C-alpha cells in the first residue's frame, strides 16, 4: 500500500496511544468484522476564558495503517482545542494533515474524526444528566 510519509510516521510512532482512566467522554466507532474499530477517550477542562477544552485525548485502534495514522492525527488535532472547535474536525481535515490517504482508504479507515465527535457527544450527554 502506498502511504504518505506522514501516514507512515503516525503509523509507526503513533501519538497519544492508550486509554484515559476515568475519561469524561468515550467514543467508539467501526466494527472488527469490517476490519476497523476505534476508541477515543477524552478529558475535558475549562480554559482561562471559561470555555471547555480537550485537555487530554487518547486512542486505541484495531485496523490498518491508515486507521492507526488517522487516529493518531485526530488526537493531535484535537488536543487543546475547545469542544466546539474539535467537533468541527472533519475526515478531510485529518486526511489533509496526513498529506493524503490512498483513495480506497478515504472512507473505510478514516473514522477517527467520527470517534472524536462521539466522545464529545458522550461527554455532553453525561454532563447534562
Amino acid at each position, binding site marked *: *500500500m502506498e*502511504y504518505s510519509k506522514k501516514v*507512515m510516521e503516525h*503509523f*509507526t510512532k*503513533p501519538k497519544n*496511544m492508550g486509554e484515559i482512566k476515568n475519561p469524561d467522554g468515550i467514543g*467508539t466507532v467501526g466494527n*472488527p*468484522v*469490517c*476490519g*476497523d*474499530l*476505534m*476508541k477515543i477517550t477524552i478529558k475535558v477542562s475549562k480554559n482561562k476564558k471559561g470555555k471547555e477544552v480537550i485537555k487530554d485525548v487518547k486512542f*486505541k*485502534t*484495531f*485496523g*490498518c*495503517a*491508515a*486507521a*492507526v495514522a488517522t487516529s493518531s492525527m485526530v488526537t493531535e488535532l484535537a488536543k487543546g482545542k475547545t469542544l466546539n472547535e474539535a467537533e468541527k474536525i472533519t475526515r478531510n481535515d485529518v486526511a489533509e494533515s496526513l498529506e493524503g490517504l490512498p483513495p*480506497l482508504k478515504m472512507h*473505510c*479507515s478514516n473514522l477517527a474524526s467520527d470517534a472524536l465527535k462521539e466522545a464529545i457527544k458522550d461527554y455532553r450527554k453525561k454532563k447534562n444528566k
Partner: protein
Amino acid sequence: MKIYLDNAASTKVSKEVLEEMKPYFSKEYGNASSLHDFGQRAKKALEKSRRIIAESINAETEDIVFTSGGTESNNFALKGVAFANKEKGNHIITSSIEHDCVINSCRWLEKQGFKITYLPVDKDGFVSPEDVEKAITKKTILVSVMHANNEVGTIEPIKEIGRVCRKNNVYFHSDACQTYTKIPIDVQEMNIDLLTINSHKIHGPKGVGALYIRKGVRIEPLMHGGGHEFKKRSGTENIPGIVGFAKAVETAKKSDITHMTKLRDYLINEIEKRISEIILNGPKGEKRLCNNVNFSYRFIEGESILMRLNEKGVMVSTGSACSSNSLEASHVLLAMGRKHEDAHGSIRMSLSRDNTLEEIKYVVNQTEKTVSDLRKMSPLWNR
C-alpha cells in the same frame, strides 16, 4: 536487512536461470516458426525446454502447451474445456478456495450458461473426494481442484479426486502453481487430464507458464492465430522465458524441499511458543506445503502487521480486506470457517530455498514484537 517471505507471490530469478536466458534476447532471437538457422535454433531451444518440463511430470512432450502464466493456463483449461464439451454437458465442479483466476473464470462461465458447483472445504481447507463424487452428474464435464492452496498451503487429495474423475469419465484439471517442483507430480498416476504450472514461483521468469493437456482432451483455444503450440495456443513463443522456465525446473532440488520444510516447522513452532491467541491456518505436517506458514493473530489487523514488518525489512502478505482492492477478506479463510475478524488478522509467510535459519530467527523476533506492539494499541485486547 531485507528478508523476503513472499515466495508464494513470486520468487527471485536464480543466477543459473538468468544466464540460460541471456543469449535468447539479442543473440538467439529468431522466431521458432522461421525456417532459417536462427529460427531453427529457437525451435530447438523450445523443444528441449518442452521435453524437460514434460519429463518432470511424466507427460508426453507434445502434451505441454506454453502460455503466459498460471492465469492464462487456468483460464484456458476452464473456458477451453467448457466450450469444447458443451454438447456433453454444462456442469463444472471446483472448490471454494481456488485462486481468483479459477473462481472468476467460473463466474464468467456462469454468465455464459454453465452451471458451477463450488465445493466446500473443512476447517483446514481440505476438499473431500467423496464430495466431488457426489457432485458429479450426467452433465458434468470438468472437475478443477488445485494441488495446494496458495494462501494456507493445504495439499489437496488430488490423486483420489483424479481417480473419482476417471471412474466417472469426467476431465480433471488441477492448478499446481504452488506445488510444481515442490511436490512430485505424475499426471499418469494421478489421473490428471489438465495441469497448470508456471515459472515465476520456482525461480524462473515471470510471464511464462504451461498447461499440460492430455492427448485426446477436447479443448477450444483461447488464442487464435498462426497455430502455434499444436494449434492450441497461437502467438510467437516466448523463447527466453520458456528456456528460463525449463532451467528453473532442472535446477530445483529435493534438498530445497527438505530445507524449506525445516525452516517452515521452526517458524511455526517458534511462533506458537512465543505468541498467544493465534490460529494456524491450514494443516500441520506433511499435508502442508513445504514453504507455507499462515497464522491469524487475533485482535489485530493484517495490513498493520504487514506494514510494521515491512518497516523492519520483512516482506509478507495478508488475507485482510484492508489490503485488497475489493476490501473483502480472504475467500479462502472465510470458506475454512474463520471469522471475519480473524481473517483480517492473517499473515502468510512463504519461504524459498534462499531463506536461512538466521533470517527466520530475526523474523520470529520481529513478529513477536510487532504483534505485541499492535495489541497494546488494540481496543479488543484487554491484558
